[in-house]
């Protein structure tokens, strides 16, 4: 495969497309599929044939606005229809060439206008399982350019210049990581794509893998060339069956086109990718635990150093990046590192995909430039809190992150800014909570998550999270005391500082951030036995004397009996 051949394929796809008057793109991501967008697509195809229109119905990946699904986009007029069912198919096809159907149209301009799509540029526009569609959107051009015209060092230079930082949450500079693996001694090296998106409330990686998997494969191949690896693994959650099946189909297509395998692009570069399924362990998102899992063992982390860059999979130098990080690579190589660095803020470049969920009108996937204010994401793009409720907090970073109150909404989204206010960027989950959520209960929810997901290897995390959970449960049930609160804060710092891996080190974050911004709610639970959101079941309000007496007599009776 050469660049000229890519051009030919792209030209073919475009000619085909130009022959048609209309193209109807139907979203078939997990969200819309759950509302039977597959039936909608079949019905649309049948209607196009029945009504004799010169149109093509295409299966695409996620269009982002899950709240309004099932979605369909009619090209070239760019009319977006929402809440479709197969009953609407006839009318939609009939409207081609006529006035669009006003009542089905989605007119959320402000939702889309504020976004900048780099990672999601093809999502919703291409058929994820057709490699030619991807090639027609400049796919694999970056890989072939890198192989033919750039040295591995040149590739790393571009990535470094772009200022890209790891999108899994840590924010480690990607160029630096690649450089370390490239310099590591050894003939055999590996690249791994971390698709173990365990954060509850986050689905960016799922969406990218379902909507544009070739982009991730291309990013991995470029990375492999840069660091000198010839074998790659994608570690995906088994809970994402659609992503796995699309990825499998894409790997087959890429091999068929000679874009994976031996002598890619007629060069001496060989590379292939295997899929490894996760098995439902949050800790496997941690890189050393993930490596253990690929090796077929229990996913327990190891102390670092040695870092995987030096000694990773089977003891070989290994590059691990997140799905979204790899998805950024091809556009950076195509447009240059400077192009990417021009977007975003001072120390956080480019764009970030967020999964906007919870108590917000426009739930779904959004991609925004770094540095954008939280307020803009929530109020403009997200459409604010629905049903007349008031905003209380936004949670970023999942169980490792924190809850930020309304006063903090004017900070710009970047790794450093979020860290400075007690949360983290994380992988991109952004959950909005309103006045019906109790922050103590939310903190307890996250600690319960970390407690059950703790692998049990180190004591601070294993025992610490369990004790924190007990204390929080007590506070939630109205039996907590100020001593409990003090002990809780004490434990937070122990678990944070003494745990082995990221899971334990960040587990106290939700507690610390809610204590920092919503301390009043903790105090209300302790002193007033009151939960202002009405979520916590406070056991015994204030007992009247008679009730206590009765209870005492009853207990005494049981004892003597």
């Amino acid at each position, binding site marked *: 495969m050469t660049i000229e051949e890519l051009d030919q394929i792209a030209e073919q796809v475009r000619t085909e497309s130009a022959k048609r008057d209309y193209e109807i793109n139907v979203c078939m991501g*997990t969200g819309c599929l759950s509302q039977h967008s597959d039936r909608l697509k079949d019905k649309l195809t049948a209607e196009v044939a029945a009504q004799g229109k010169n149109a093509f119905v295409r299966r695409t990946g996620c269009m982002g606005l899950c709240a309004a699904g099932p979605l369909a986009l009619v090209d070239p007029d760019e009319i977006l229809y929402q809440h479709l069912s197969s009953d609407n198919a006839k009318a939609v096809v009939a409207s081609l060439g006529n006035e669009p159907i006003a009542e089905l149209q989605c007119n959320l301009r402000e939702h889309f206008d504020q976004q900048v799509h780099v990672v999601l540029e093809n999502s919703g526009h291409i058929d994820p399982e057709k490699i030619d569609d991807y090639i027609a959107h400049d796919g694999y051009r970056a890989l072939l350019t890198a192989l033919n015209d750039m040295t591995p060092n040149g590739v790393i230079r571009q990535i470094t210049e772009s200022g890209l930082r790891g999108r899994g949450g840590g924010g480690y500079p990607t160029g630096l990581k690649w450089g370390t693996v490239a310099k590591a001694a050894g003939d055999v090296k590996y690249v791994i794509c971390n698709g173990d998106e365990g954060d509850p409330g986050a*689905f960016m990686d799922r969406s990218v893998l379902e909507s544009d998997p070739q982009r991730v494969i291309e990013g991995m191949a470029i990375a492999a060339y840069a660091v000198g690896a010839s074998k790659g693994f994608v570690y995906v959650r088994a809970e*994402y069956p659609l992503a796995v099946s699309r990825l499998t189909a894409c790997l087959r297509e890429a091999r068929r086109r000679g874009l994976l395998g031996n002598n890619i692009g007629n060069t001496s570069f060989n590379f292939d990718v295997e899929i490894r399924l996760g098995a439902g362990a949050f800790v496997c998102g941690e890189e050393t635990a993930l490596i253990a899992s*690929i090796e077929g063992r229990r996913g327990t982390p190891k102390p670092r150093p040695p870092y995987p860059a030096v000694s990773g999979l089977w003891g070989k130098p290994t590059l691990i990046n997140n799905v979204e990080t790899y998805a950024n690579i091809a556009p950076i190589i195509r447009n240059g590192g400077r192009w990417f660095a021009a977007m975003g803020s001072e120390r956080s470049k480019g764009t970030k995909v967020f999964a906007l969920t919870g108590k917000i009108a426009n739930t779904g996937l959004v991609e925004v430039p770094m540095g954008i204010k939280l307020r803009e994401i929530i109020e403009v793009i997200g459409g604010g809190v629905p049903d007349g409720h008031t905003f209380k907090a936004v949670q970023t970073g999942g169980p490792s992150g924190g809850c930020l109150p309304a006063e903090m909404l004017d900070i710009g989204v970047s790794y450093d800014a979020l860290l400075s206010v007690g949360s983290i960027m994380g992988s991109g989950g952004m959950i909005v909570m309103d006045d019906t959520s109790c922050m103590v209960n939310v903190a307890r929810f996250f600690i319960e998550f970390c407690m059950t997901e703790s692998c049990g290897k180190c004591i601070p995390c294993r025992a610490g999270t369990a004790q924190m959970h007990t204390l929080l449960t007590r506070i939630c049930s109205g039996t907590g005391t100020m001593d409990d609160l003090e002990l809780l804060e004490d434990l937070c710092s122990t678990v944070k500082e003494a745990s082995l891996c990221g899971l334990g080190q960040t587990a106290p974050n939700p507690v610390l951030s809610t204590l920092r911004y919503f301390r009043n709610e903790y105090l209300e639970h302790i002193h007033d036995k009151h939960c202002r959101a009405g979520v916590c079941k406070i056991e015994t309000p204030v007992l009247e004397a008679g009730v206590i007496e009765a209870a005492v007599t009853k207990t005494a009776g049981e004892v003597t009996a």
Partner: protein
Amino acid sequence: MRAPTPPPLPSDDKRWKIVNGTMRKNGFARHALIETLHTVQSSFGYLDKDAIRFVAKSLRVPLSQAYGVVTFYHYFSLKPPGKHTMTICTGTACYIKGTDKLVAAAEKRLGIEQGQTTKDGQISLMTARCVGACGRAPVILNDGELFGQASEEKMLEQLERWAVE
């Protein structure tokens, strides 16, 4: 050195051939343990002792290690599932939208706790740590099929339909 001969298949059940296929594809390498267990679970629905023994022996992995892996990962189940499985997502977005109440209602209706199967083997009630469909929260999986914006009413109706089947 010749590789030791793999053990015979536990029975003539054709599904064992699928399991063996996964191991063969991976050259009976030890790192194929999790892959193979996935195949067993997707073929049989769960992992019983015979299956774990067979896989451990075939891949020359100590039985303790294989058992350790099975119990470490939540995805693997040691008990056979019911005829139908309802999985309620308890990820953050679903939790904020009240799936804890759905879980409680389902537990009450079925008289079992999450992670258990009804006595007649008809329905298993499971919870998931986020299925990644947060845009449609709260989410329920009925025999693997995803339903978004679930309500208690609809959920109970589904349980009712399964119970009388």
